């Protein structure tokens, strides 16, 4: 059955796409203020409902989809680069690196005039978060490589070290900062897609399109990379360039997500793994399916986050971690069994 689905690439893509549309539709209705589906379809909304829909629900839904897609696809690409399914931006410290840079720039932005702060918030923040994630990603890459192979224990240990260092530094900056812009520690450690506005979307969208085009282009390259570094070189891939580009593109995805939604863990780990289990490891499936799968997962998590304790909201990262944590343990056990 799976083999048959595999042959018709279009069908599963179509199924996921329709699922995404349905879930997005549900996401537009539910929350502290429920909008009737009939009214939503016919467009007969009250002014308040229209306001909630256009200014809150719609950007939030689109934003959650984009962030989910970016996290999942960058997870898939990083796993391809490190040749290991255990890699996730959160686990190996890339997210905390980005978080630290973001918190730092907000803390220091209070030194500037208010107008400049606004500009810094939208433009410099993602840029700094991106530099933080690129820095950690490069460091991790060099730490974990031994004789052209990824040493998984080095990777996880370096990840623990980076996570510890950057979480502590982030906590320190937040502790000494009284700026409202930093809001709460929860935002940076657990994530929140509630704050996504049209302005932020305007910034996220080009990054999303750009990185998506790049990841789509390198699907086959990622397949070849999983053979090993020298094999990839023999097949004509310039490793230095490809590795650098994958790191930059993934770091852009993670950086932008962190800058606007805080750190949302495990999406990049869980989604590509589920896709691989169903469709096999070929990246021409993994990349497009991860985009849709990530969007679906984060949107579902967001729907849960705002309905479970209504009218209040749970941080979205709690939902993804509740799913992702046990899943990561399961992967570790599976990895251990394979090693034996």
């Amino acid at each position: 059955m799976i083999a048959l689905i595999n042959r018709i690439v279009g069908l599963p893509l179509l199924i996921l796409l329709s699922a995404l549309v349905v879930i997005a539709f549900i996401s537009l209705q539910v929350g502290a203020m429920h909008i009737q589906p009939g009214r939503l379809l016919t467009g007969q909304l009250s002014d308040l409902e229209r306001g909630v829909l256009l200014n809150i629900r719609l950007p939030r839904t689109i934003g959650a989809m984009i962030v989910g897609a970016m996290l999942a696809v960058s997870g898939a690409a990083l796993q391809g680069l490190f040749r290991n399914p255990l890699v996730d931006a959160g686990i190996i410290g890339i997210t905390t690196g980005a978080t630290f840079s973001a918190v730092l720039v907000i803390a220091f932005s209070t030194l500037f005039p208010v107008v400049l702060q606004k500009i810094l918030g939208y433009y410099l923040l993602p840029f700094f978060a991106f530099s933080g994630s690129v820095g950690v990603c490069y460091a991790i890459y060099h730490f974990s490589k031994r004789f052209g192979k990824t040493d998984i224990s080095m990777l996880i240990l370096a990840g623990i070290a980076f996570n510890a260092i950057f979480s502590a530094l982030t906590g320190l900056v937040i502790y000494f900062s009284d700026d409202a812009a930093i809001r709460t520690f929860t935002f940076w450690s657990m994530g929140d897609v509630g704050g996504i506005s049209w302005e932020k979307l305007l910034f996220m969208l080009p990054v999303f399109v750009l990185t998506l085009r790049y990841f789509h282009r390198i699907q086959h390259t990622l397949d070849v990379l999983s053979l090993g570094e020298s094999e990839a070189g023999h097949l004509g891939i310039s490793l230095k360039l490809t590795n650098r580009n994958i790191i930059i593109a993934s770091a852009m995805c993670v950086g932008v997500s962190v800058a606007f939604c805080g750190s949302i863990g495990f999406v990049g780990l869980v989604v590509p793994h589920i896709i691989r289990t169903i469709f096999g490891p070929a990246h021409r499936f993994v990349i497009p399916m991860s985009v849709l799968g990530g969007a679906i997962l984060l949107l579902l998590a967001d729907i849960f986050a705002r309905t479970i304790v209504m009218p209040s909201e749970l941080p979205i990262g709690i939902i993804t971690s509740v799913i992702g944590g046990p899943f990561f343990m399961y992967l570790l056990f599976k990895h251990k069994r394979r090693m034996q």
Partner: protein
Amino acid sequence: MIELNNVSLAKKGTPILQNVSLRVRSGRFTVIAGRNGAGKSSLLNILSGEEKAFSGEVTLNGRPIQTYSLSTLAKMRAVLPQSNQPGFAFTVEQVVELGAFPFAVSGDIKRAIISDILDKLDIARMRKREITTLSGGERQKVHFARVWLQAKLSPHPCPTVFLDEPANNLDITCQHEIFSLLQQECVQNRLSVVAIVHDINLAARYADDIIFLKSGRLLRCSAADQCLKEDILEEALGHPVTVLHHPCSSCPLIIPQSNRESTLKRMISIKIDAEGIFEPELTFVSEDSKIYRQGRFWQKGTF
């Protein structure tokens, strides 16, 4: 044709190769042999264009090899490194298909060639299996199939295949299957093969040319029949050997000996010189003083 002129290579101050000058001819089956640590893999990496940190001059078809881009090289030569497990559970077919990565070929042509290769290597039945579930030997065959696909699709008039110990993990049948396929391709399709081979009899059976390396220096690079001599082999492999005529084919048969056998053989040679009865290379004396002639027990006794 690949030409090395006074090539040296050092890693972290340790010399790996020193002043190697040789020529690898197109359309020939060239074997690189020598002891562990003699610099065989490094030489293969230099020849295949992977290792660039050497001094001296390496030219591929008259042009310095460093001036070729990786993608151009990928269209001219394929490389089989020592076995490596892929990061994900790709199927056999998917792994083989990666050999077509450097080329823009239509799916139908690709599939037809892949089927042909899988049939020839007798792995068609496992095409849907995950590579992680295969044995070492089966995996080696799959990677060989990938490399072969790359060489097959090459638009170059005489593509080269570089193989680092291709016989690893393979049983005798598979070894001969793969080596005779390669030899056939050399003759029919002007494929050049450069392979590191430890089994000297396998090399003797299939190689046109042999490169012997010793401690990073070139010991000999010539046609196989000229260098498969006892003295050269003993120096290259660091072990006494006896070279016999193969009973079924024209290639030499090389038998490694223990040091004791080697002394006994010398004793026999001396005796024979005096009496002129036995052909020396066909007579052995085992440790319990049994005398063997032409591989069979002859009589007990000593010389």
